[in-house]
């Protein structure tokens, strides 16, 4: 009877157990400051994965950092001004980001490619100017932004204090895991396939009855919802938001994480944000070369783009191929055992 090949789902399940165990144990292996970095990294994983959902339709936005800011500002205001519980405020923040994206999609999604890119940048800058506008300082705090944002409430029954980065990391881990599962399911559903179709053959998709505007809008709104959620997680942890925090520099980082990681696979941007954050915040900082750090970071980016034009994600199939080749070579080199030898 031929041996039945294990299904990919089984491989995933087997791989997920040590991964989950590793993620749970991780904060206990790190120093205090590394735990802080881990919290921000986890939030950024959600941010960059939400960005990838939009790129599935072929559009690259320059407003994603600002949309994260909408989530952060809205959640902060809901908790501080309206007195809503923080968990509910976070959902309000995410919802507000999704709603603003819905409104923006009417003018922006009439454009495509480069024009969409520039349009999204302009829209983002308008929102940032509104946050800074002196007439609205009473609401958004002007250039200084909003301070003393209520933190996530402690769970006193279990003595869980969310000031502790390890505890906040677990909260983020739960939220981000659920979000990533949703994003993954969307991508692998019929909707996700339609996003891909719009990316590669939008005219063909239209010709078979796909409303490309609606699907692009859906991708924009869903990606904004999760970017807003990332912003809300950030706001209630750091306790402050200001317009500069969600400016061009942050947007450039999102683009770098996505490009260096690669956007062809679900894990590409995750690889990008994890590798580059560890490199920048842990490795380069440990070298005590503060003023040289941006230069080295830039050099590493150039090298990675030169030698890995398909992103870090392209390393994974290469490693898989190399391992398979090695296994094959070993199997050929190995002499057959006596039992396997044909009877004389």
């Amino acid at each position, binding site marked *: 009877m031929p041996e039945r090949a294990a299904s990919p789902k089984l491989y995933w399940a087997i791989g997920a157990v040590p991964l989950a165990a590793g993620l749970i144990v991780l904060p206990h292996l790190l120093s205090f400051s590394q735990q802080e970095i881990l919290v921000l990294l986890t939030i950024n994983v959600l941010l960059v994965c939400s960005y990838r959902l939009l790129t599935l339709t072929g559009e690259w936005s320059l407003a994603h950092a600002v949309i994260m800011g909408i989530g952060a500002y809205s959640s902060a205001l809901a908790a501080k001004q309206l007195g809503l519980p923080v968990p509910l405020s976070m959902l309000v923040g995410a919802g507000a980001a999704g709603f603003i994206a819905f409104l923006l999609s009417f003018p922006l999604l009439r454009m495509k490619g480069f024009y969409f890119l520039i349009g999204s940048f302009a829209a983002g800058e308008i929102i940032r100017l509104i946050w800074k506008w002196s007439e609205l*300082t*009473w609401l958004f705090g002007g250039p*200084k932004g909003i301070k003393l944002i209520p933190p996530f409430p402690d769970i006193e029954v279990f003595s869980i204090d969310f000031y502790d980065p390890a505890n906040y990391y677990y909260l983020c881990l739960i939220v981000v895991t659920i979000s990533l599962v949703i994003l993954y399911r969307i991508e692998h559903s019929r909707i996700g396939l339609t996003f891909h179709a719009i990316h590669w053959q939008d005219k063909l998709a239209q010709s078979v009855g796909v409303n490309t505007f609606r699907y692009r809008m859906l991708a924009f709104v869903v990606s904004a919802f999760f970017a807003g959620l990332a912003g809300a997680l950030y706001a209630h942890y750091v306790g402050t938001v200001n317009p500069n925090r969600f400016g061009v520099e942050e947007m450039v980082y999102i683009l770098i994480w996505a490009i260096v990681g690669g956007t062809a696979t679900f894990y590409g941007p995750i690889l990008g944000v994890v590798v580059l954050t560890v490199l920048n915040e842990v490795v380069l900082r440990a070298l005590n070369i*503060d003023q040289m750090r941006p230069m080295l970071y830039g050099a590493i980016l150039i090298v990675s783009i030169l030698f890995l034009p398909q992103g870090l994600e392209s390393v994974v199939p290469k490693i898989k191929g190399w391992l398979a080749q090695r296994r094959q070579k070993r199997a050929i080199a190995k002499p057959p055992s006596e039992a396997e030898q044909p009877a004389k």
Partner: protein
Amino acid sequence: MTTKFALSLVNRRDFLLTTAAATVMAGVSMPKITFAADKVVKIGFLAPLTGEVAAWGKPGLDGCSIWADWVNADGGIKIGDDAYKVEFVAYDDEYDPGKARTGAVKLIKEDGVKFVMMLGGDPWPGVSPVSDKEKMLFSTLLPSDLTPETKLLVAPCEVHPIYNVTGVEWLAENKPDLKTAVIVAQDDSLGKPSVATYLAAFEAAGIKVLGDPIFFDPATTDFAPIMSKMLALKPDIICLDTCYADYVHPLTEQAFQQGFKGQMISCTADFYPKMVEKTSKEFMEGFIFQFPDFDDPALNAEHVNFRKPNDFFQEYVKRFGEGEWSAVSWEYASIMDLWSDAAGRAGTTDPEKVLEAMQVGGTGKQAFGEAKWWGKELFGIDNALVGLWPVVVIEDGKARIKEFKSIPAWWDKHKALMIKHMEALNQMYYQRS
């Protein structure tokens, strides 16, 4: 030939392994440089060391390294019965509140610092919960961070932007024929309170501000249209507010290129020799700002508390170059003078006890003279040390102190104006969200 011979004896892998092992062994076996007194007190330096605001972080750290070398060479600081060497531990917060929080946690919980100096501004609200939870004393150069809640935050050196009133007051006294001004500033947390201060100072001095202050986005790179807009109003005075060095330089160049012949005033003129190079000595003659070079003979006045300012400047120039001297080169060092004095008097490095010792009697030795702990009306808390501040003017390409003027004296006369303009720009502590 030699190379070929060497390669024949040692292959590349062996050579690399041997070199790496030798390096590691050298690192392990070399004795670490230690001081006679092994007790060390660590001080945190949490400021932007990279990015556009780095000019107000890195030169300060450089100044601290001189301060530490001098103090340690003198045997360290005496706290209780022991002498402590001082060691600075720096963390680049990149002017980002999230990174500043990470840095504060690292400095306090991993490096064991006893006091943290910050530039302040945007990063402070991210650090504030850490200060509260860990009961750590922080200092800021920007007192607009102060609120009634910031009990463990002090502004013991620079009371930005209030000292800017001294420059305008001196200008009005010495050049009474100048009657109109325009103000330009970047639209951020440093620019706005500074604009309110200049508006109050100009009004108090009887100088009319033409049009509304011009706020530009911090991402601006082309300053030609901004300067054209200002010059169109034909002002006697161009006020560059508290623009960062990256803005002061191009704005000044634009003023020069577009033929401005009037008076310029600015909070800072960091790296001004470069501005003189790019424009001319004649153009820069009379440029007023607030931060002296410390080789100025006026700093040897009896009321100045900063130790050996001229020697400090010479040492700074020797180590880092004259062009690297900036507004903050001496400021963090002067805060260390205050902290070490207070820790010595408290006999402990406990942050709350050091703060208590620092504020005893309601006065303190600020760099330029005896000063008082002040700020209740403007910041809601008396955690800013205010006294004399120098007015600096560029003469023949060199910055020179013209006069030390009293900030409290101006405040007593004109505080209503200041509060009016601060309120108009939503900058009072009770208006900041």
